[in-house]
């Protein structure tokens, strides 16, 4: 799908801006909104660049810099905090060899923290893209990350 097709899905009204930005971001392989994207949206909505930039930079789900293929969002709400999310978090940074906000060198993962995911019965919890993972432990984290890594190398082989 072309970017212009995404825009055309929505009537050119400012109220659709969040939906459009979500769609454009998901459409980008690097999970972010480029300046070009923001300009396209501004043009489509007959508004100024600043209005779009202001919105895009306010909401924490949008990124204005390129990210990895998968976005890991680890919950740091009070509940997950209590449930020991920090240990999980340490394991993740160790496994991925990155800090929060950064992207792995193979561009596979970007690690982010998030406010409460509403999965408190599964605390500590995180999401990878749209998938929810709960009852996290260091061991479980390793399995999950390995899964995604495997999936990618499979994908590569198939394409190759």
């Amino acid at each position, binding site marked *: 799908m072309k970017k212009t097709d995404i825009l055309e899905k929505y009537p050119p009204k400012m109220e659709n801006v969040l939906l459009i930005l979500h769609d454009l971001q998901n459409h980008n392989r690097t999970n972010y909104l480029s300046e070009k994207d923001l300009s396209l949206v501004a043009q489509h909505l007959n508004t*100024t*660049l600043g*209005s779009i*930039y202001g919105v895009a*930079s*306010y909401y924490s789900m949008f990124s204005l810099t390129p990210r990895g293929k998968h976005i890991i969002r680890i919950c740091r709400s009070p509940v997950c905090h209590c449930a020991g999310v920090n240990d999980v978090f340490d394991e993740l940074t160790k496994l991925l060899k990155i800090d929060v906000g950064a992207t792995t060198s193979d561009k596979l993962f970007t690690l982010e923290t998030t406010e409460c995911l509403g999965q408190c019965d599964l605390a500590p919890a995180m999401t990878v893209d749209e998938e929810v993972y709960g009852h996290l432990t260091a061991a479980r984290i390793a399995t999950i990350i390995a899964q995604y890594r495997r999936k990618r190398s499979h994908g590569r082989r198939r394409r190759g």
Partner: protein
Amino acid sequence: MDNRVSIKIDGNQLSARRGDNLLAVAQRNNVPIPSLCYHRKLTPTGACRLCIVKIKGMGGWIAACTVTVAEGMEVTAFDPELEAARRDILDYLLSEHNESFDRSYEDEFKALIVRYGLDDPVRRRFPSVWKTLGQPIDDSSPVLTYDASKCIKCFRCIKACGEVQGKHVLSMANRGIQSYIIAGLGVWGASECDGCGECIQLCPTGAIVEKPNRDLLITETPEKRVVSICPYCGVGCQIELVVKGDRIARVNGVEGVKPNDGRLCVKGRFGYEYVGHKDRLTQPLIKRDGQFQPAGWDEALDLIASKFKAIKAAYGNEALAGYASAKATNEDNYLFQKFIRTAFGNNNVDYCTRLCHASTVTAMLRALGSGAGSNSIEDYATADCILVTGNNMVETHPVTATYVKRGVAAGGKLIVIDPRWTPLVKHADVWLQPKLGTDIALLNGLMNAIIREDWIDRDFITHRVERGLEAFEELKDVVADYPPETVEAITGVAQGKLLTAARLFAKADRALIATGMGCSQQVTGTHLVFSLINLCLISGQIGKIGSGLNPPRGQNNVQGASDVGCLPMSYPGYLPVSDDANRKKVATVWNVSHEALSGKVGLTTVEIMQAAYAGSIKGMYIMGENPMLTDPNLNHTRESIQRLEFLVVQDIFPTETTAYADVILPGVTFAEKNGTFVNSDRRVSRVRKAVDPPGSARQDWKIIWEVAQRMGYPMKPYADETEIFNEIAAVAPFMAGIAYHRIDREGIQWPCPTQGHPGTRTLFLKQFNTASGRAILHPVAYVPQTEKADADYPFLLNTGRILYHYHTCTMSRRNQALTDFSNRSYVLIHPEDVKRIGLKNGARVKVASRQGEISTRLKASNDVLPGELFMPFHFGESPVNELTRDELDPDSKIAPFKLTACRVTAHQ
């Protein structure tokens, strides 16, 4: 219902307008409730929280700026609790604030810090965190710098840009304590910011500051502040000139007064550097053996007087002519026309109005009895429908455009008619894009629709139009030939859009038209304006508050120069020269015999040049005009000027025209003189001297007075400009009630016939100024343009202005800030045409017409229709008027700057 309510603040009874904002009421009554985010011109934000008060019967503390007063409201504005909280809030702000201060701006925040004793660090409660925040500085704009560490995030700049200027370029980035102001995508210089500086004006701290002249501003020596009128377009904004030593260091908009209420555009705020520019003419220059050589005033003036006298003696009175100036004051221009009429003894005085709104004025005079705009700038903000036609207002009258945009934001409908995309189109409900030169068909089509749908105002036609319904029937017959499908075929405008526009305009309670050069500068200009008037008349959209026809004037004093008589057909106050009674009246005031005044209508601007070409005009006096760039068909103009025996040019800079002069006289800029300008709203406002002229440059009126003296036509001595103005008021009946002391703070709109008269916001409320008191319909048919594209000249060229430059750039290009934004000529061509002619975007090209050929750069753009071109006319190195034609509108003698067949080829 009683319109006022009574409230109590800290026990003091106050009276307030119902619906008023509590903080505004407090401020007006000098209750010093602190606030940083509130500004009179903006919607309340409630962000700084300093104006918290307690209100009896309401829980908690409430920000006064968010409260509407109600009868009996009891407010506690000051008590120890509130004051302690305010101190803490200020302390909070300080903790995220970079306190370095270079004394170049007024800091409202700093003043509050001192007021609450927080300038003493010991009294602060909260540790400073600003250095941990990494707030950026954006220095990329040519005119301003933003420093986030000095920003208190009050939103005033964002709202100044959005609500006041209608631009919405600024926004907040990020959130929480990491938020800061951004323009566009975060780089000011690459954003849509056009440099109007409204954000600077409303910034309460030093977060957004001017870039030009910072070194001048940073000083503790006392400043001189002089209120005057902006020297650029015809909006007539009141400006405050901040003077350091002998230089203008800054310009601010004057808040709370008409017409601009503090608003300015980029030229108004940053276009003042030309005043002190090194290129200024500082002494008289006499051309000897083809070289200009400095001369003394006496020598120059005597030479001029003797040459003019010699021409008169040899060829008669009619061999002399003068161009007055739309940039000079009323006082200068009044003396100029008096000089022409007495010393030259003819009526050959005209000026650039002939090049811009002559057709508008001609049509309006004939149909309505007055050529001036019927409404006021503030009416745009409250109109139900605004029709902007042939007027690139955002660039040519930026401050007027802010009122239009506010009107749209308030729910008003906007129709734009323009063959080219203009920035106002972004705000329009309907944009009609007719092919060049087909406007009359379009307007007739609008009327056709209005009549067919029966949206006409019968009552208005019956009572306010000459011959009422009978005249209407004649119009109806003419416009019957323009059903939507015919109009679409001629103009290219879709039928649906046409109908929408017709409905929006005719059915609005109050509809306003702003016309412009796009309409007037055509061979059919007068007819086109007749059509606009017809449109107003049949739908009853004139003659009431908020309805009417307005030609925003291009230059600061176009209106005034006409008002004070720089017209070949009339004396000051539009008294026709051909009328004996007028001649007698004027002769009495001027203390000359009325036989000495010619009753023969003089020549117009272009006619004077044609006469010079033909050899009947031998000598000319040009004050502050540059016909060598502004007149159509420049090759012809050049030849004409060269054929003159003697040419005097009085100006502030060397121009394309001074090069051809025999004597150049150094006049002065607006900032160096006293006087008055009249803006497009007919508002007569004060111009005041702020700095001394350079070298031996002299007041323009004094130069004219001297020449008259030396030609043997002694004018009465004037002690100062006041005396000249009083004489104008004595001659021109509609200014009779205006005097300097009445317009000290704010101008008055003429007509103002008596000293007690408040001035006139809207014309034609009771009657039109025609003999019958009724307006006259002038049905006009669409006639295809004689100038046509053909195989040799396949494009039609349209010309106009851009925001950053003014007229021939004599002034505007001598400002670094403005040239940083734009300094290059270009020609807009539709991308399809670019492809077709096989050229590249940005290529150097030759644009040639049947009149001449110039060189410029190609800019591919969807702004123009295929087959059409657009070029700005400002740039001397690509003088567009080498291309334009001098075929004149038969009614008004205006030249068709807006339509010339051209070809575009690669530059060799």
